[in-house]
């Protein structure tokens, strides 16, 4: 298959699964085979574009022309590939995990679960490869719709409430984003994402400031920037694999991805500095990081604590985008992969605790480190990584963010990063302490291999990415390439 058709194929392969899965409603084995095949093919297709992108190429994918100079257009650049690689590799692992989890919990509506999951992944890769705002928006809204069935999967009143809240937040934000995109379209007709932005000098500073605020309000809901985060902790009512992939990787990262695209590829860092919006964004991000840490400390439900941790970590990315230097952007972009692997390892562990030990809280985990060594080790690796312990993936992001902040002269932000790290220690380490250093109270065993294998792999990845950030998929190089292209500006011909 030639390079140009691969981006579309990568999007469509899971959509094909969406069509096929309902036909095998009563045959779980076929259903799972389809899911794995689609996930594996998707990862293979996405990964096959890596050499070209690492060589500095930007892959032009399929274009579906509309009218008035608009089109639905896919294009693979380093940043998009970074996100797509993270999402599709974690989809494969999550599929394995789902297998174990859904069987362990004897879940109903499994077909709708797998269908929605596949649709979500199509949308996510579409978001990653979108070449313009319209394509981005189409995939962004499809993601909203495809996620809804997963949030309400349990069909309990609580799940329904969370689902409604989710729709109100995301669809409302979608309309705001739509207005912003239409506005940008009327200012710069037919423009596509350009490293360094395309809006510079096209409108007055005040207009651009308002437009930017609309964009951030639109993307900020999925990126869970405070005070737009209310849906995320509520959505933790979803099954754990959903929380793991969608609420640690696909959905929330789609929002953060949107923020970075808008900052780096629509406005450009310099334009933002001229409007003063970068400082505002920094303040919001820093406040989100700190407040989320405090809130996480107050949550006794493990998944909700993880959710608040996610809210804080996402704002690292937003912060990096707002600072806008090469180092800060590299850190922010690397955090897509780094946080993805670490947080999913922790969610996987939380799910194993739910199915095997029947624990959902942050207390009562005494001695589980000995009974479920893999699970709790993966959890500990994720937690240490998020706290920013060196040699783990989170440190790479934090270090680069810190360096970037110092370069840009924002010393206060380093303080924010350090404080947040301390809070991470405060809300994760008691769990680890209980698990490893207290005596066990009952008989609990490790979960089955479909759950242990993915959490082992992601836990190990949290470590490997910290020691060798370029191992495997070259996440660090991709982040660096993308960050440099944004700062240099105009890296892609129109």
């Amino acid at each position, binding site marked *: 298959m030639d390079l140009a058709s691969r981006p579309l194929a990568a999007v469509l392969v899971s959509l094909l699964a969406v069509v096929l899965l309902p036909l095998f409603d009563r045959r779980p084995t076929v259903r799972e085979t389809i899911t794995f095949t689609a996930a594996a093919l998707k990862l293979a297709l996405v990964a096959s574009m890596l050499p070209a992108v690492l060589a500095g190429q930007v892959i032009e994918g399929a274009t*579906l*022309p*509309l*009218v*008035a100079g608009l089109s*639905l257009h896919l294009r693979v650049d380093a940043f998009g590939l970074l996100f797509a690689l993270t999402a599709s590799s974690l989809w494969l692992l999550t599929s394995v995990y789902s297998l174990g989890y859904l069987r362990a919990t004897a879940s109903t509506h499994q077909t709708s679960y797998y269908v929605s999951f596949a649709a979500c992944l199509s949308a996510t890769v579409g978001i990653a490869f979108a070449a313009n705002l*319209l394509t981005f*928006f*189409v*995939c962004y*809204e*499809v993601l*909203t*719709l495809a996620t809804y*069935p997963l949030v*309400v999967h349990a*069909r309990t009143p609580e799940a*329904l409430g969370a*689902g*409604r809240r989710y*729709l109100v937040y995301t*669809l*409302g934000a*979608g*309309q705001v984003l*739509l*207005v912003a995109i*239409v*506005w940008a*379209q*009327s200012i710069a007709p037919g423009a596509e994402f350009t490293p360094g932005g395309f809006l510079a000098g096209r409108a007055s500073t005040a207009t651009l400031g308002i437009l930017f605020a609309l964009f951030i309000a639109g993307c900020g809901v999925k990126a869970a920037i405070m005070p737009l985060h209310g849906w995320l902790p509520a959505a933790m009512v979803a099954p754990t694999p959903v929380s793991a992939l969608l609420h640690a990787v696909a959905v929330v990262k789609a929002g953060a991805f949107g923020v970075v695209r808008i900052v780096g590829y629509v406005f450009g860092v310099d334009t933002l500095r001229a409007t003063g919006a970068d400082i505002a964004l920094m303040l919001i991000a820093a406040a989100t990081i700190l407040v989320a840490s405090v809130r996480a400390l107050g949550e006794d439900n493990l998944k909700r604590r993880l959710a608040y941790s996610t809210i804080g970590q996402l704002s690292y990315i937003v912060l990096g985008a707002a600072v806008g230097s090469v180092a800060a952007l590299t850190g922010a972009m690397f955090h897509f992969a780094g946080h993805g692997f670490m947080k999913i390892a922790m969610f996987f562990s939380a799910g194993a605790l739910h199915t095997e030990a029947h624990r959902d809280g942050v207390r009562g985990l005494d001695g589980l480190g000995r009974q479920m060594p893999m699970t709790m080790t993966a959890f500990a690796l994720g937690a240490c990584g998020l706290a920013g312990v060196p040699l783990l993936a989170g440190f790479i992001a934090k270090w680069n963010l810190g360096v970037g902040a110092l370069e840009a002269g924002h010393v206060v932000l380093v303080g924010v990063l350090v404080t947040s790290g301390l809070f991470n220690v405060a809300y994760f380490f008691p769990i680890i302490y209980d698990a490893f250093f207290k005596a066990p109270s009952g008989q609990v065993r490790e979960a089955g291999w479909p759950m242990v294998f993915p959490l082992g792999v992601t836990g190990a990845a949290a470590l490997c990415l910290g020691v060798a950030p370029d191992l495997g998929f070259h996440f660090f190089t991709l982040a660096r390439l993308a960050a440099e292209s944004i700062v240099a500006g105009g890296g892609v011909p129109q």
Partner: protein
Amino acid sequence: MSAHLPILIVVVPLVAALVVPLLGRRTPGVAHAVTLAALIFALVASGLVLARVVVDGVWRYQLGGWAPPWGIEYVVDPLSGGMMVLVSFLALAASTYAWSYLLATDPGRIGLFDSLYLLLVTGLLGIVATGDLFNLYVFLEISAIAAYALLAMGGDRATVATFRYLLIGTVGSSCYLLGTGYFYALTGTLNMADLTERLSGVGESPAMAVGIGLIVVGLAIKAAVFPFHGWQPDVYTYAPPPVTGFVAAAMTKVSAYAIFRVLYFVLGGTPVAASALVFLGGVGVLAILAGSWLALAQTDIRRMLAYSSVGQMGYIVLGFSIGSPIALVGALFHVLNHAVMKSCLFLVAGGVRWRTGFSSVASFVGMGRRMPLSMLAFAVAAVSMVGLPPTVGFFSKWYLLLGAFEARAWPGVAALVVSSGLSAVYFFRVLERTFVVSDDRLVATESRELPAGMLGPVLVLAAAGLLLGLFQQPLITHVIQRALPATVS
């Protein structure tokens, strides 16, 4: 024969309408087959005519060889050709659906039903095809009278609702006729092209303003544009499902077409047309907000869909009012979107009522299990109504929004956004019950899926809603953009 296609499109359904009642008494199957054949002919012929006018430009057909302005002229341009295809497609879909429904509920009246149905289609196709203001009135009345009879077939409450519609609708068509009279008095002609030419010599006058006011109000009543929509919710609620599925989709759109034709082609560019468009803009914004708001308050699904139509008609006239090429593309694309999707929604809602006896929003609990494919089609159409990608409704809204933005029509922008939010609430309220809320009592109940003859059209309409949006480019560049008046594009 192909030289006479424009008139055959109207005449074949008309002749079939006369034949069908004779066949219907003994052999309803044959009667319906004739109906379908006539509608298929209309669809194919419309397609051929459209294909020709897209390539060769406007097709003027003189009835009986009498030259205009004395004779009646049929004028097919990409606008009317596109509308003909749309109307005959919807007619075919709803008529296919009607067979299984009628066979089960009222087999004795199939011939009568089909006859009236064909008359209605004749009227609507005639309105679209004609190039003569008075001839348009004739077809307006043909379609209206056939529609009154069809709509009243839904039972006692339908009769009362339709009688009210008859009174209000007659006021509407009388307004239109009076308006036409004013223009005849001013120019001495009824031919649209001729009228346009002669008006330039007449100049501005109060009579012209009154004439256009009457025409616009008359057509707005027919199109159920807020605040002239009073007849519509009851009629749509109580009519038989196959009728609502066609009338709600096609009739109001054809009236909207007539408004567009008069204001942009016949009177294009005149100051009175411009003031009428400003009026319609205000009305459109109010319609969008009021329709969505009232839809939110409904407990009966059909009434909710009816009020949703009021709002959607607002989208269309708002687009007309803005009048930039992109806004007009949006408005015409929205005509297509709303026609196809609302037809699908009403056909499913009617099917649900027929199969289960329920029509309240609350009773849709668990319907996703009992009628999975129908409800899937309903979901696609609902998402398109809300205007979410990747459905066609998103793209029409996108163009409307872009047009409103470029024209700095902020009330329009606000109305479109607010209405999207409100329609998301009232449609997701239904979808949540349909697919998510589970009721253990329903697990044992058997499937109530529609029979293939009714399911087929519904699925085709839903598929159109998914595909027309993504593969819109040929449609818009070849038909819709060429359908815009020369003064605009």
